[in-house]
Every structure is written in structure tokens, then in C-alpha cells.
């Protein structure tokens, strides 16, 4: 049973056709590498899944049936979480405060409700532990490494019972050691049965962690195949157009 399907999804921005009848299926516990050159339609596809805007035509189908998203919050309520490229973290707050930002746990009664610090610290510690990250809930994000910041952003997606996590270029701007850390985080997500979509330009990362690769060029899907049956050379060819389709 797939957790998310896109059925003949197209998107027009005025006269520009950004996506052309794209089909995609995501299974629980798999990592899909979404690749393509700039302007190939990756971001548009991700934004449709994340609920930033609805497709011009075609359907998004979840386990419970077809859905229409108008706002990211609606997608989040259905278990689709996105980690933005800039991570959307507040540097001046602690790791736990960032994990729970906008979804704070409170204690008290009636209108006298205050933040439940202990519950939020404990739950964050649990999430970081699940992700096997060394991030500490009370540390301020400003002082964290790139890998730890990713852990905070990814822990946020685990707050609710997310089924799909979209990662937008998580390894684009961090050091080699931290890339390994982030790839480990992705494996932890997968081990918990989450379907992960990894948007990346970095061939080694995709081949290290993904089960399948999904290549786009000029708004079209040009390939979708198991990573074991492909090669970096083939994917490069597909991205640039040297290989027409596979």
C-alpha cells in the first residue's frame, strides 16, 4: 500500500508548463532520490506534495483517498512534512523550542496555560535519541553544527506521526563529515517506516542512501528506477538530456 501517489500531475504558471503529467508512487520505508537540473520541476513537484499550491490538473492520492491541499498546514495534518533548504530554524531559540515551534506543549488549566518545558525537553531528547543524534534539547541553535541543525529540523517532522518527509537539498551547504551525519538521519527516518523524498544535486548522497531514483527534465519524468539498476553516469545523462529516457 503506497502512502502517497501523484496521478498525472501537471502545473502551469501562466503560459509556462512547469510539470507535465507526472506520476509518482511512494511506499512506506523507502527513500526516493528526486534529481534534475535547475528548472526541471523538482521544486514545483515538492511544493505540490507539501501543499504550497494545488496542481493545475491531476490528483494527489493518500492512503485514505484523493486530497487537495491549499496550505502547507493541511499537508502537515495529513502526515506530509517538509524540511526546507534553509531549515526554517530560529537561531536564538533552543533545539527543543525549535522542534516545538508553533506546536508548543502547554500545561495548566483554562486560560492560564504556560509552556510545559519538561515535557518538551523530554520529548525532544527522545526524538534526538531515536535519530541517534548528539543534539541536546537545551542547546541554542546558534551554537550548533550543520548536522545538528538538520537533526533539529528533522526531529520536528517526527513530532506528529508523519508518513512522508520531504527533504530539500539537506546536504547542499554542510561539511563532508556532517553529510554523513545527515545521511544517517535519513536512514533512521526510513527505519521508522517513513517514506523519504530526498531532493539533491549530489550524486554520491543519492546513491548512498536512496532505494530508487526519480529523474526529471523540463517538467517531465524521464526515469524512475531502483538505484541498484542505475549508475551515476546514467543519471547524469538523464539529467542533462544526453540519455533521452530510461
Amino acid at each position, binding site marked *: 500500500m503506497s502512502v502517497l501517489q501523484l496521478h498525472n500531475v501537471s502545473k502551469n504558471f501562466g503560459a509556462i508548463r512547469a510539470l507535465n503529467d507526472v506520476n509518482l508512487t511512494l511506499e512506506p520505508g523507502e527513500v526516493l532520490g528526486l534529481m534534475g537540473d535547475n528548472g526541471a520541476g523538482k521544486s514545483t513537484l515538492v511544493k505540490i506534495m507539501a501543499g504550497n499550491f494545488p496542481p493545475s490538473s491531476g490528483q494527489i492520492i493518500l492512503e485514505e483517498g484523493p486530497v487537495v491541499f491549499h496550505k502547507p498546514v493541511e499537508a502537515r495534518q495529513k502526515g506530509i512534512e517538509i524540511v526546507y533548504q534553509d*531549515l526554517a*530554524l530560529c537561531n536564538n531559540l533552543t533545539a527543543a523550542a525549535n522542534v516545538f515551534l508553533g506546536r508548543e506543549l502547554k500545561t495548566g488549566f483554562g486560560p492560564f496555560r504556560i509552556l510545559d518545558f519538561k515535557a518538551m525537553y523530554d520529548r525532544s531528547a527522545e526524538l534526538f535519541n531515536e535519530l541517534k543524534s548528539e543534539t541536546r534539547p537545551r542547546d541554542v541553535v546558534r551554537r550548533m553544527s550543520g548536522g545538528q541543525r538538520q537533526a533539529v529540523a528533522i526531529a520536528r517532522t517526527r513530532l506528529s506521526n508523519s508518513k512522508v518527509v520531504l527533504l530539500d537539498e539537506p546536504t547542499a551547504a554542510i561539511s563532508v563529515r556532517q553529510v554523513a551525519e545527515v545521511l544517517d538521519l535519513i536512514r533512521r527516518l526510513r527505519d521508522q517506516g517513513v517514506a523519504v523524498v530526498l531532493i539533491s544535486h549530489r550524486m554520491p548522497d543519492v546513491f548512498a542512501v536512496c532505494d530508487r531514483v526519480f529523474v526529471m527534465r523540463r517538467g517531465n519524468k524521464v526515469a524512475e528506477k531502483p538505484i541498484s539498476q542505475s549508475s551515476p553516469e546514467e543519471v547524469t545523462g538523464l539529467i542533462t538530456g544526453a540519455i533521452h529516457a530510461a
Partner: protein
Amino acid sequence: MPPDTAAPISSAISDVVGIKERTALQRLFSNQAIWVALAVALIMGLMSLRYPEQYGTLENFYNITRNFSFIGIMALGMTAVIITGGIDLSVGSVMGVVGIVVGLIMHAGEPWWWAVLAGLGTGVLCGLFNGILITRIGLSPFVTTLGTLSIARSAAVLLSQNKMIYQFGPWADQFFDIFGGQYIVANSVWLLIIMTLAFAFVLNTSAWGRHLFAIGGNEQAAQLTGVPVVRVKMQAYIFCSLCAAIAAIMLLGWQGSAINALGTGYELRVIASTVIGGTNLIGGEGGAFGAFVGAALIEVIRNGLILAGVDSNYQGIFVGGFIILAVLLERVRGRKRE
């Protein structure tokens, strides 16, 4: 659960405890408000020793505390706005128009509670005006509140017909007793203390407080994660104007007359107090206690210079110097943090 997860949990706890112990001390020394409070105590102590007859009297203590209570109350509201990364230049003019509204209603013979309600309502309206322009239309806080500064001052002059209002009608005595009275220290000082404690509590323990800091830290991130950014910012501007209205009522109660120039130039003293207390003008950092001690420091310096017989024209130089010093301190701390 596999057994190997037990080890990381226990080590994580000891890590957390270790971190906490270090930050408790670090936080004390990296807190600008603490240093400012020490400076206030030091200046007061030295001045009392040097001028025991003029400075070290209870009378002077009451005087100093009353004088900074009005600025302090306004600085609390300013703190909320500046934490979100905004600024409110209109507080002095809001104070002026609220003073005139309250004065006119008292003068007309209405009971003081109507006058006070109308004054607070005027404050809320000013804040709403700022808030709507800034959050809904997206104008810059600096320009918007600069406009309100001019509009509210003009409104005060027009409403007062450029006259001083000093006959407060049949309810005057009760009004002056409540808002201008003194129980050990002036009532406005008690109010400042209560408001500081309440605001500190709200800032540190409520979701609203945390959202203020989040917006100041990264507004876009706050928006993306579902923080009601527009609502929270709007409330910050309303709270700021409301504080100015409260300060106006307390000041009116003490002075016993309303002039349309009330609060002229106060915006700079309020912002200075806030910044000296350690609230970061870039947003995302600040506290209620800082607003309190920042206002206190400015008044202690001002009062000290007067009693030491220094030409009052030097006040600006000293106060300005402390503002720049505060920002420099902020810069040094910021560098250490990165």
C-alpha cells in the same frame, strides 16, 4: 527497545546537566540587565556617600523611582515590539494624545473610570493602527510609527485646542489619589514593579512570549512552522501603545494637568532604556527586567548629575554615552557567542 539505547540516554542526561551548570553562571554574567543593575546600585551608593544630604535621602529615592517609572512602563511595551525585530517611535505622541483624552473627559465632569477606559481605548486604537499597517500591509515599522508619531501629536494639539487642561472636575481628587498617590513609593512605581514581574512571567513561560522571540529570530521560519505571526506582531504593537497609555494616565495623576506636549521626545528615552537593558535592536533577544533597570540607569545618571551640580546641558552627553556603551557591550557579547 534494543538494550543498547540505554547507554546514550544516561550519557545524554549527564551532558545536559553539565551544560546547565555552566550556563547558569554564564547566563548571569552574560546578562546585560545584571550589569546595568550593578551600575545603578554603584552609582546610587557612591552618590549617597558623596552627597549624603542631597542624594542619600528617602525623598530623593522616591523622586528617582517615580521619575523612571513612567519611562519604565513604556519600555516594557517597547521591549515586546523590539524583540519581534520592530520598533515603535510613536509612544511619546500616543502618551500625549491619551493624556489629552483623559484630561478632556475628566474636565467634562465624567467619572474617572470612564476617562481611564477612554484613555486605554485610545492607546489600543493607536496600537491597532500601527499593527495593521505593519502586519497586514507590510509597511516598515520605522516609517509607520514615525507617521503615527506626527499624527498622534497633531491630534493631541487639535483635541486640546492648544490649551492646558488643569480643572479635572468633581472626580479629580479620587483620580489623583489613585494614579498620583504614594504608598511608601509612588503608585506608578508599584505598577511598574507589578507589570515588570507579570511581563517577565509572560515572556518566559507563555507560547505568546516564545513566539515574540521566534519572530525576532527568524520571521519566515516562524511563519512556516505555523506561528500566527500577524496576530502576535499586531498584539505586540497594541501592547506597546497600551503601555504608553498606562504611563500617560499615571503621569497625569501625578502632574495634575494635561498638556499636549506630554511625552514629547520620550520615544528616544524609552528606546534607550530598552537597549541599555540588553534588548537587541535586531530582534530575538531581550527581557522585562532589562527595561526596568535601563530606565532606572538613565534616571539615576540624570538625577545624579543635577544633584552634583553639573550643568544640565551635559545630561545628553552622559545618557548618549551610555547608550553607545550598551550597544558596544552587546557587540562584544555577540562576537563571543558566534
